[in-house]
């Protein structure tokens, strides 16, 4: 072959931007390393959840949901979430309206404060309420006198979950509403629409995907919160054990099928959350 002129194809293949054997090797190395890393750390644990839950068969899996304590844990989690998510959604909408629609001093400081719960350890998020309302806390004696229980009871669980999931809706809506601008709202108001009408007919449809996105993430975190709730709940079986806490209780009793059965529910919730999230992104929503 020596001495023969290069064909056009050979000449093209040496040009920049064209693949050669090294490119192929690098590509497959990167893909393989990525997959191996994710397989060990993410896929194997996910598969384990279901493998252990069904270890003793489908019947045993279903039977573990007959346990009254498991049922009460599911009920408690749903109750707490049904208070936390709507309140944080309301907060997110209010905060986004105030921050995105108006110019005022100290705005970036306010945004930092809203993001603050994301930066602190969940254990601290729970602890602050123990320090306030716990027996030795600031209001502990007063609460005991008036027979009000917050710590080791539902209100404490709600407060701790609320603090942890506080920024989730707000931080989706604030940048989204800032980016979309105020022109349409101003037009609506100028044309005589009321404030509420403008909000429901103009703003809400504009930000709906961001809102859905924020709510599902808030919901997933609220249902799965462990650290903060663990500190305030007191781990009373069947009374103040949420689903994640009940997983811990069952796991420590070596009831692996039971623990992983509850875990499988939360895993399916996580998968559902990711599915909705992907659909929202497909619908054209882009995070900022």
């Amino acid at each position, binding site marked *: 072959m020596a001495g023969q002129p290069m064909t056009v194809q050979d000449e093209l293949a040496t040009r920049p931007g064209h693949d050669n054997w090294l490119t192929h090797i690098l590509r497959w190395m990167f893909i393989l390393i990525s997959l191996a890393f994710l397989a060990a750390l993410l896929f194997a644990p996910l598969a384990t959840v279901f493998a252990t839950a069904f270890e003793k068969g489908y019947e045993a899996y279903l039977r573990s949901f007959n346990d009254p304590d498991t049922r009460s844990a599911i009920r408690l989690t749903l109750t707490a979430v049904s208070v936390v998510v709507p309140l944080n959604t309301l907060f997110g909408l209010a905060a986004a309206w105030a921050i995105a629609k108006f110019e005022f001093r100290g705005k970036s400081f306010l945004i930092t404060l809203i993001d603050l719960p994301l930066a602190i350890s*969940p254990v601290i998020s729970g602890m602050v309420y123990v320090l306030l309302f716990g027996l030795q806390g600031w209001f502990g004696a007063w609460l005991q006198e008036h027979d009000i229980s917050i710590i080791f009871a539902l209100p404490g669980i709600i407060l701790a979950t609320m*603090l942890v999931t506080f920024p989730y809706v707000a931080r989706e809506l604030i940048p989204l509403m800032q980016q979309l601008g105020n022109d349409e709202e101003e037009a609506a108001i100028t044309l005589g629409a009321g404030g509420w009408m403008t909000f429901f007919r103009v703003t809400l449809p504009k930000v709906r995907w961001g809102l859905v996105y924020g709510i599902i993430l808030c919901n997933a975190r609220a249902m799965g919160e462990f650290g903060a709730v663990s500190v305030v709940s007191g781990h009373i079986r069947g009374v103040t054990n949420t689903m994640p806490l009940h997983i811990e209780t069952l796991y420590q009793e070596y009831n692996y099928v039971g623990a992983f059965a509850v875990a499988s529910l939360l895993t399916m919730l996580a998968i559902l959350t990711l599915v909705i999230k992907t659909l929202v992104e497909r619908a054209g929503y882009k995070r900022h």
Partner: protein
Amino acid sequence: MKAAAAEAGTTGFRQPSVLPGFGLTFGFTTFFLSTIVLLPLAALVLMAGSMDWHSFVHTITHPRALGAYRLSFGASLLAATINLVFGFIIAWTLVRYRFPGRKLIDALIDMPFALPTAVSGIALTTVFAQNGWIGRYLEPFGIKVAYTWIGVTVALTLISMPFMVRTVQPALEEVQKDLEDAAETLGAGRFYIFRRIILPTVLPAMLTGFTLAFARAVGEYGSVIFIAGNLPMKTEITPLLIVIKLEEFDYKGAAALGVVMLAISFFMLLAINLLQAWGRRRLSGVGR
């Protein structure tokens, strides 16, 4: 305009706008923020402040506390470093290569966000235990993962992984392919292109991702306590020590450790903001 500002009664504090609802939304935002986040955090600082200086220093420099910091910071730093490498590889693979299942894997990267920490905790422990799917192959080499500091690092690597990937991914998408092609045309080698074109563009994002991953890992509780042996001085993380102190009704000791962790969180937040500002300046300086 004057009338609007006077009506709001906040002349100088905010700029006038035709849109209504500032008082309502701003009031609700600050009220809710104060009740749920700021007052409880103030209670924590006050509780620690009510200690005399000597016992405060004694609590936060106790050998057991120092051992806990060492593990928390050491393992978090290691986890963030592992993610610096593997997070980059995964982000690169997802941005640059097209292969079957890429979209699914891209969606699954967020799994550690959506999956409750208690679930990742028990699942990782099961996988890496001596008879687990991965643990059994490490055991012959004398590598024990579950119930050691290695396990702590593995858990922290998993839960902080999305922060790295999701920060680096958009930055990699920003790298201009034509710049790379131009460099190759001019005779630059693969490594040279990486060092002079790709790395400078993604470096701020990588550092931001590193800091975010580290900040998340330091505060993590749920996934770690299952896989750590929780032995004082050896496999006890700082958040766990706080929980133990709370369970012993040593509120002040818990608050003191909480203040240390809070100070670190503030420092991290500051670092993240500075890094992001630096990244923005760098990008705008490239002249596009």
